[in-house]
């Protein structure tokens, strides 16, 4: 009898012994055609404490705009929200938010208070469908009580929500856009928040400045300017003044920082014909990359690998987009017709966005629009259709937004859109604004 009982035990014993060894992982099973809808997110106004109404208004508006601009959410219209805005987790009734009319799947709420000239914001993100453990995020922010700081807090909170619900997307709410504006009378470099607010001048050179490009860490902005001939200039945002860059002679334009910020690529005609050169950030270590008759300009680095550069070349006649390795070899032609300029390489290294007039020449309709092309397969999609001349596209660091200049409103202005061409928003209204560049910081 013992023997047969032991027989039953032995496999069980094996199991006990191996218990700590079997690290059983949790499984997720899902698939592609189960629907990829946008997350339905409800964002009621934050509960405003005494004396914080103006700040609360700025906060609510900024938060709403950031979440809308991300293109990830189906925001519940504010008129659907229940009349009592929750300010604390204890005040939240999830069933009210889950049922119609809001029918939300996520809820972002909180409160904002001012005390001792300091604004304090508490924000939560709740999963409405999960009553047992609804909290996804719980954050508290404190700063001096100004509108500026309140907007910054709203940007931070929005970025957190986007990071959690978007699957690791680094939000762009705190990013900046550099651009050229004529409103001081000269073309100078200006900077603004990614949503068009807070527009400020950067350079005061009193000359013509073109094509600003920020370094990946945001500490420097490169541009080309007229100072006894066209030269490359670098402005340090940390020091607040221009810094040194070698004078090269000829016409130098279109500087572009590499993805790690250690090198600069630009176009120079110091040898007679505009060619692509690379140098370090002070202009030393000059290396020439192209060697063909015909102007080569507008270089842009592959920010993921730092091993390729896309540029515009007129070596076959009209300007076309090419890519080459960073030593100048392996030149590949990307476009095959029309007039293509201003390439910008996406942060994940997969796409090029550029301005293209596909039917160019006498008698052709000739609209200049922004196109996106998959580098590997050369397949392209047209992003803008609404008329005007669209030029100078630049990728946002999240790889989901593009800023560009458009003349569709009658004058050159800066516009932004999602990378599929939707949600095109005008960012500037004052003066003539052109040549935008999206900076991570």
């Amino acid at each position: 009898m013992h023997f047969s009982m032991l027989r039953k035990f032995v496999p069980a014993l094996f199991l006990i012994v191996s218990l700590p060894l079997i690290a059983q992982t949790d499984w997720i099973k899902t698939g592609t055609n189960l629907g990829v809808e946008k997350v339905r997110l409800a964002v009621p106004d934050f509960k405003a404490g005494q004396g914080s109404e103006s700040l609360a208004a700025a906060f609510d508006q900024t938060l709403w705009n950031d979440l809308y601009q991300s293109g990830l959410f189906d925001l519940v219209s504010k008129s659907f929200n229940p009349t009592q805005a929750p300010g604390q987790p204890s005040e939240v009734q999830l069933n009210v938010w889950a049922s119609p009319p809001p029918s939300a799947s996520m809820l972002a709420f909180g409160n904002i208070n001012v005390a001792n000239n300091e604004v304090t914001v508490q924000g939560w993100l709740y999963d409405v469908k999960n009553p047992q453990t609804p909290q996804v995020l719980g954050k508290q922010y404190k700063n001096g009580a100004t509108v500026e700081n309140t907007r910054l807090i709203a940007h931070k909170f929005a970025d957190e929500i986007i990071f959690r619900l978007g699957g690791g997307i680094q939000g762009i709410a705190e990013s900046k856009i550099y651009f050229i504006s004529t409103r001081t009378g000269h073309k100078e470099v200006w900077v603004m928040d990614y949503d068009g607010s807070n527009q400020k001048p950067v350079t005061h050179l009193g000359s013509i400045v073109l094509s600003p490009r920020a370094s990946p860490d945001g500490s420097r902005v490169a541009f080309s300017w007229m100072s006894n001939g066209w030269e490359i200039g670098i402005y340090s945002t940390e020091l607040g003044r221009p810094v040194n860059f070698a004078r090269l002679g000829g016409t130098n334009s279109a500087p572009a920082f590499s993805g790690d910020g250690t090198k600069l690529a630009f176009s120079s005609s110091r040898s007679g014909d505009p060619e692509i050169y690379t140098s370090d950030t002070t202009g030393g270590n000059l290396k020439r990359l192209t060697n063909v008759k015909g102007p080569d300009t507008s270089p842009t680095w592959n920010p993921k690998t730092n091993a390729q550069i896309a540029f515009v070349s007129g070596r076959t006649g009209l300007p076309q987009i090419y890519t080459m390795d960073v030593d100048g070899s392996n030149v590949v032609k990307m476009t095959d017709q029309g007039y293509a300029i201003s390439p910008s390489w996406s942060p994940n290294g997969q796409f090029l966005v550029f301005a293209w007039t596909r039917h160019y020449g006498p008698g052709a309709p000739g609209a200049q629009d922004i196109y996106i092309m998959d580098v590997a397969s050369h397949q392209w999609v047209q992003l803008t259709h609404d008329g005007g001349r669209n030029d100078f596209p630049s990728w946002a660091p999240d790889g989901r937004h593009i800023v560009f200049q458009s003349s569709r409103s009658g004058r050159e202005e800066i516009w932004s859109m999602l990378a599929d061409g939707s949600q095109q928003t005008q960012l500037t209204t004052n003066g003539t604004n052109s040549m935008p560049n999206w900076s991570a910081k």
Partner: protein
Amino acid sequence: MAVRAEIFEEHERWAPSLIASTVLHVGLTAAIVFTGWANFHHAGENWGGDTSGGGGAMSATLVSAIPLPHPVEESQNVLANDSKGLSQAQPTVKETPPPDAIAIADKKAKEKPQKKAPPAPRDQKKPKPVEEARNNEIPYGEGGPVGSMYSNSGTNFAMGNTKGGISVGQGGDFGNRYSYYVDAVRRKITENWLRYEIDPHTPPGKRTYITFDINRDGSPSNVRIEQSSGIPSLDISAQRALQRIDTFGPLPGGYSGNKVSVEFYFER
């Protein structure tokens, strides 16, 4: 002697024969000609079918109308496809004659010179461990408590909420607790899946199952094809979709495990 001998005593009367022969030949010829005319004279018939107006051109049909054989879609029905099914064949037991049996001499059994004594009779072949059954295993208890086979054996070992081992009651719950994370994973993969990489002639409904792990920091690892769809371009495009993704976002803070396994299907 110019003698003309009248050899022939009687005139051969050849005229009637000649006339008969002539008539026969003429008649035969006429019959041939008539038959030829009657059979092969077609008044105004057009080649190439019924084209009124006498165009006479052949109409070409588009190649796609030619009924090419459809790519065979493997049905899921266990009886209708090549899978081994849910049952397994019993290994055939080789009948060994009892040791003291005398072999019956058959007619042709001459004394063949015995080269070598045959090797010792092999042991009865052990039944091969069944590997194929794994695919058809009905999955149970994945991520959940261990199957009840052992827990009911009356033994006393505690199968409670042991930490660091099998998580009872919590396992398999990830999707319920963190459904927003699952949605984000699904969205990210679908965004990075480029369908133009798939052969356009693939019939709809084909699925590739890919398994991978998501580490604590959100990066995918250990990507492998769990079940191929049989279409290489679909499998490769599925793997490439995973390769394009750097991170899904860190695992939710409230989750204590180090990684999550994902089984994801790509359906054409």
